[in-house]
């Protein structure tokens, strides 16, 4: 029996062109392409977006406020001599807010990327930082926009309270037997 739990992907959604990507949640999928499709089904049924990113959860490097308070990696990070790669930087700024895209940095390691982000953006104290290599992202394409988002935009949705099914079934069941044939 194989493990039936698929890898986890983080889903980010962009509300409009030029806007930062916001963290929406996670999906399980066997691969990135399926993760993108699952993202659409889980998060775009009532759409307010134009694009998705999916990123393998394990590709995201996190540093929380607590971790940063006594950050021993700081010294090592400066000495990082890895090949520079581009990272997207995200920050969670309030408990109620979605983790949002802040910008991007080039760095030799994830820890160095966090450090660069702090210097570059001068943002004090988010609840946590996320950095993720740019090449770990699978993005929806502009051609995906219509089938993924536009189709659902025209739909009207009824609240479940508008369907009095439970009440109705109770009434039907309580009808005297003589009524039914």
């Amino acid at each position, binding site marked *: 029996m*194989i493990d*039936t739990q*698929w890898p986890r992907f983080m889903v980010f959604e962009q509300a409009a062109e030029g806007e930062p990507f916001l963290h929406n949640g996670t*999906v*399980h*999928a*066997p*691969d990135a*392409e*399926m993760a993108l*499709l*699952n993202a*659409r*089904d*889980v998060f775009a*049924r009532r759409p307010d977006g134009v694009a998705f990113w999916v990123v393998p959860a394990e590709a995201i490097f996190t540093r929380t406020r607590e971790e940063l308070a006594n950050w021993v990696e700081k010294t090592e990070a400066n000495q990082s001599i890895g090949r520079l790669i581009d990272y997207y930087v995200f920050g969670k700024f309030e408990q109620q807010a979605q983790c949002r895209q802040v910008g991007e940095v080039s760095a030799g390691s994830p820890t160095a990327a966090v450090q660069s982000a702090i210097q570059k953006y001068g943002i004090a104290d988010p609840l946590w930082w996320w950095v993720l290599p740019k090449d770990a992202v699978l993005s929806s394409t502009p051609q995906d926009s*219509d*089938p*993924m988002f*536009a*189709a659902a935009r*025209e*739909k009207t949705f009824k609240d479940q309270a508008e*369907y*009095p*099914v439970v009440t*109705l*079934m109770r009434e*039907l069941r309580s009808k005297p037997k003589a009524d*039914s044939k």
Partner: protein
Amino acid sequence: MNETQTKALAAYLVALADDELILGHRDSEWTGHAPILEEDIAFANLALDEIGHARLWYELAADLMGVERARFPDRQVYFRPAADFRCLQFVELPKGDWAFSMLRQYLFDAFEQHRLARLVKSEYQPLADVAARIRTEEIYHLRHTRAWVPRLGLGTEESRARMQAALDELWPYAQALGAPLPGELELEEEGLVPGGGSLFAVWSAEVTSLLKEASASTSFADNEVEADRAVHSEYFPALIADLQEVAQLDPAAQW
């Protein structure tokens, strides 16, 4: 359109709607039972979309027949005798395993994509408009279901075997996808609808090629195809009884 064509087109649209309705109903049977949560949500969405498309086709038929479009879909779905439905046996077959339902949906979506590409150019503008609306969603369905074919075929030995078994069972029924719909032959000449036969050839080549890439065997015996939409499978009466049960408890109920 003259009166004959109007009648023919209404019958054509009801048959299209019946396919979408019954396939959507079969898909909806997965709700709460799909192998993983994300696919459960995806398939429920897809089922809902198909049933929504059925409603659009029924409404268009109602307009042509001069009956009230608000009530027509419910009348068709909940109060029509099973014998009057014009869906293919292909969509009536029980949902089977995940591979079976996914592959059936793929084969159907692939065919529908070709039909919609032509219907958006129909000489009857209301039909072209609805086709354009449906097509956007169907592009997404097809992408999802097509993505599953190589994943099943090239996944594990078990997934490959399940897809092959599904294909062997579905293929003879799928041959009826290209058979003319009610009214199709008259309507095709007027540029109102495409001919299923020409769509079928393109569809067949396309799906066979993907299935081969997914290591499926596509050599099939020449089976008899039941292309008459008035002839239903042994599974259909139970499906309709299930579908209509609640509505028929109290036909006058307000929902």
